[in-house]
Every structure is written in structure tokens, then in C-alpha cells.
């Protein structure tokens, strides 16, 4: 159905150009561009691959294999943005021994450009997290944790805009409610703000003011909670907001074979993806763009 819409739109646009007789093509301005988003979540210090005799994930994951896969994709696609949705800390002795140093150093080497903050990032306290920031060559994004009275304040931005071959990509981060999940003495004066209100403000800035071509939310809210229908999650966030193109999720360690297409508050499509946990999968979403302004409608085809 969506594909048909797209074809219709394309047809309409070419007719328009023909009628106008303005011969845009002679100016060589019709361009198509592709942006590849690669993402992980809840890697939980799984720096080494699982052993080949592991009952659940034989030979899967590990930073070396992940680097190889990213390298292969980057060879074929020059325009790549590598992101993470939090909880890169805690899960193997690498974290207990080095407090996240190796996790951050390796993410920097792999070329991550941004991540958000998961609840386990506080496992050595907010001071433990701050002490590792020197090893992070990527941006930490969180729009709904107010760090202004904490040591993390200088290291965190609510959003960041990435220019990718002329495509303007706005990325913002969201974290899960800390009270009841993380000890207060760990997160100290961090203030949790409502994710929906925060997102509404973020998309206003990113879409209306900054006029981003694409808006991505890095979310550690969790995919959905069957037993807690009122708890905010990625599915609800998608429904209650607009102008978000992609939600990259985490926290619930949800394996959803392929991205989910949800409808937002104004009935447009939002893509939600989460790739389980422990670095055994890499999420990939390719966005294709053109600059044909004669396409007025918003029809787009989503192939998952």
C-alpha cells in the first residue's frame, strides 16, 4: 500500500515537472542521497564474543566481529551514522575491573557518534560515569535527565545535529525513570523529566527551528510493558508525539527481528527498532532522500 503511494507520488511529480516545462534536469539539481543508520543497545560490557559452545548465542557478538561488520557496511556505504541506545556498561568483569573505560574506548574506536544514558551507566554512581567521560570520543545525549546540579552536566547535551552528506540529522536522547530502578545515592541530583513533554520540545527545535531532514530518538525507555500499561515506552512515545522518524530503543532487551512501524499522533509512520542485547545484533536502517521539492505529499515507502 505504501509502496503504491510512493509510486503515485513519483508519477505526479514527474508530470508536474513536464507541465511546467521548466526543465529542472538541465540544472542537474535532482539528487538522491542515502543515509545508513547503524545501531546497538544494551551491549552490557560484552566485549568478547560468546563462546562457540554457548547454548543461546554460539560465537555471536564481540567487539572485533562488530567492528568487522561495520567496516564492511562502511565500505559499501559512505554515509553512515553509528549510534547506541544505552547500557553499554555492566555485565562482564570488564566493567567490574575497569569501570567502563574499555567499553568507551572501544566505542570510540568503532566510530560511534552518539549514545544515550542507560540505567546501568549509573552502576558505579554518577561519579563513576563522569570519570569515564575522558575515554568517550562520541556525544552523550539525554534530553530528559536534567544534570545541571551534577558532575555530569558538562558532558551531556539534549540533542545534536549531524550533517551527513548534506542531510541534516537531529538526534536526541531519552532515559528511563530512575527512581525505583537506580539507587538515589547513585544518580544523586539527576532530575528525570517527562519523556513526552521533552520529546515535544525536542522535535519543535529539531524540526521547526533547525529544519532537520530526519529526527532520531535514542531511547532507553524500553519497548513496551505488558504488566504496566501506563508506563511510558517506545510504542507509547511514538503514538503520543510527532516528527520523530526513528526511535532506536533499549532497556527491555527486546528482540524484534525487524523494525516495527508505528503511527504517530498525526497518523504518520514512525519506525521503532531495538536489537536485543549483548551486542549479538546490529540494527540497520537505510534512509533514501531526494531534493525534489515538487513532491508535496509525504508519502514514503518503508520496507522492513
Amino acid at each position: 500500500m505504501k509502496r503504491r503511494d510512493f509510486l503515485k507520488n513519483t508519477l505526479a511529480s514527474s508530470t508536474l515537472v513536464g507541465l511546467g516545462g521548466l526543465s529542472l534536469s538541465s540544472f542537474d539539481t535532482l539528487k538522491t542521497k542515502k543515509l545508513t543508520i547503524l545501531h546497538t543497545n544494551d551491549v552490557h560490557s560484552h566485549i568478547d564474543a560468546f563462546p562457540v559452545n554457548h547454548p543461546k548465542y554460539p560465537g555471536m557478538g564481540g567487539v572485533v566481529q562488530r567492528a568487522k561488520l561495520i567496516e564492511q557496511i562502511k565500505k559499501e556505504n559512505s554515509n553512515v551514522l553509528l549510534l547506541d541506545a544505552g547500557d553499554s556498561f555492566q555485565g562482564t568483569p570488564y566493567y567490574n575491573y575497569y569501570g567502563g573505560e574499555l567499553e568507551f574506548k572501544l566505542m570510540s574506536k568503532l566510530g560511534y557518534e552518539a549514545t544515550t544514558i542507560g540505567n546501568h551507566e549509573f552502576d558505579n554512581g554518577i561519579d563513576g560515569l563522569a570519570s569515564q567521560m575522558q575515554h568517550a570520543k562520541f556525544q552523550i545525549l539525554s534530553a530528559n535527565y536534567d544534570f545541571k546540579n551534577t558532575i555530569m552536566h558538562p558532558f551531556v547535551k539534549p540533542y545534536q545535529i549531524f550533517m551527513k552528506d548534506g542531510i541534516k540529522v537531529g538526534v536526541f536522547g531519552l532515559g528511563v525513570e530512575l527512581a525505583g530502578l537506580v539507587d538515589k545515592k547513585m544518580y544523586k541530583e539527576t532530575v528525570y523529566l517527562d519523556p513526552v513533554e521533552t520529546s515535544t520540545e525536542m522535535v519543535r527545535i529539531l524540526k521547526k527551528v533547525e529544519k532537520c531532514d530526519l529526527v532520531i530518538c535514542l531511547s532507553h525507555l524500553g519497548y513496551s510493558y505488558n504488566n504496566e500499561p501506563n508506563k511510558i515506552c517506545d510504542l507509547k512515545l511514538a503514538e503520543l508525539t510527532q516528527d520523530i522518524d526513528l526511535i532506536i530503543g533499549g532497556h527491555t532487551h527486546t528482540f524484534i527481528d525487524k523494525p516495527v512501524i508505528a503511527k504517530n499522533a498525526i497518523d504518520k509512520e514512525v519506525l521503532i527498532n531495538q536489537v536485543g542485547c549483548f551486542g549479538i545484533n546490529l540494527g540497520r536502517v537505510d534512509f533514501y532522500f531526494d531534493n525534489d521539492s515538487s513532491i508535496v505529499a509525504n508519502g514514503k515507502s518503508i520496507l522492513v
Partner: protein
Amino acid sequence: MRNLKNKINFIKHLTVFTFLFLLLLGCKTSYHNYKVEGKQIPIVNLQEDHSTLDAFIAPYRSHINKDLDSILAYCPETLDKSKGEWQTNIGNFMADVCMKESNIIFEKRYGKSIDICILNHGGIRSIIPKGNVTTRTAFEVMPFENNMVVLALKGKTVREIVNYLLVEKKPHPLSGMELILDKQLQIKSISIQNQLLEDDKTYYVATSDYLANGGDNMVFFKENIRFFDLEYKIRNLLIDYFKKVDTLEISTKPRIIVE
């Protein structure tokens, strides 16, 4: 006349070109997303090695392995949580060690002694095999980051702990308490540190912060009259104990006795 016509023509062209130019500008600043493709790629079977990255990780890995595998003590028998109805050898061991080691800190900091230690059966994540004990053993038995805490509870709340144990019928690690039951599992006596339980007396109960916060439905801990966080990770407590002794001390003394 002709000049005017030319001028009008020129203006006409200029308008068209300006329009086109503006259109072009518009095109350049805005991209429209017309297609999306998404998928999940399993990270597996990527044969080629990435030796520089692996070489970067190697020293971290070897340091951890060396540390985890260095021998700290000896375990004279296999400790296993699956053997025992009301208590297990590993449960006795865990509760005794946690009580003893926590008490050293508690006495020093607060000048009081711990009376009881209770942990949860589910929190023991591995056996301790007969043979050498290493730091890795502590990580396997206790992979979580839980701290030891001490709660001041009234005797009547301690009675709720006993009721919980009788309802659960699980060999939860227990130390400092002796419970005698008849064949119908009715309570005959509850002794704390070899003295009968008194409802109005205050007892100091050591447990993990996970359980103190209501984990495993141990809701009675909410009735505490004082809360002391020892800020001592159970795993570190075990490692410190392993370093201190040559051979693990394992008590066979039953804590729950059915007569």
C-alpha cells in the same frame, strides 16, 4: 516602443529565472525522505580477524583472567544449593560468611552486633566445586552488585521472617537463628543467638540491599526501624574472605530443624 518590449521581455525572463533560482535554493536546503529500509543483522561468522582491535583488548583481558583465576583458597567439598530441603551447605556457608564479615564492619562503625543473616536461595547463582577457589568463583556465585545492609527489626517482625520461610519452604541462606518445628511444621521454638525470640526486643538483621528493598517479596524488611548500608558488595565480601582463609569453613549445623 521596441525598447520597452525588450525591457518587458527582460523583466519576464528575470522573473522566471528568479523563480527558478529560488526553487533551486529551496531544493538545496531540504531533503525529502521517500524510502526507508530496515533490518537486523546478526553479528556472527565474520571470519576475518581484526588483529589491531584484538591486540588492543588483549592486555585488559589477560589482566582480568590472571586476576580471576589466581587461587585464593581451597574448598573441601562441593557446595550446591540444590541439595537440602530446609538448608543447603552453600546457603549455610554464604549466610555464615556474610554475617561474620559484615559484623566486623558493623561493630566497628556502630558498636552493635548482627543477630541474624538471611539471604535468598535464588541469589546463589552457581555451585562452588570442591578444589581451588578463585576470584572467578565469587563472580560466578555472586554476579550482582548487591551490597550488604543491616536492618533493625522488632522481634515481632522477625516472626514474619519465620512465617515467610515456612510459606516459601525454600532453603534460604540463614545464620544466627534456630527454628524448631514439629512434624506438622508448627513452630516449637525460635532462638536468636541461642536465646528465645522476644517480640519487643530489637534485632539487627543482615541481608542484601535487593532483599531489604522488598526483593523476593521479603516485604517485612519495610518495617525496619533503622537501616544501615554497609556499602560492602557481597562479591567483594566473599573475595576478602577467600583471601583471608586457606580452607573454606563449612558448617553442617542445621538452622531449621523438623522434629
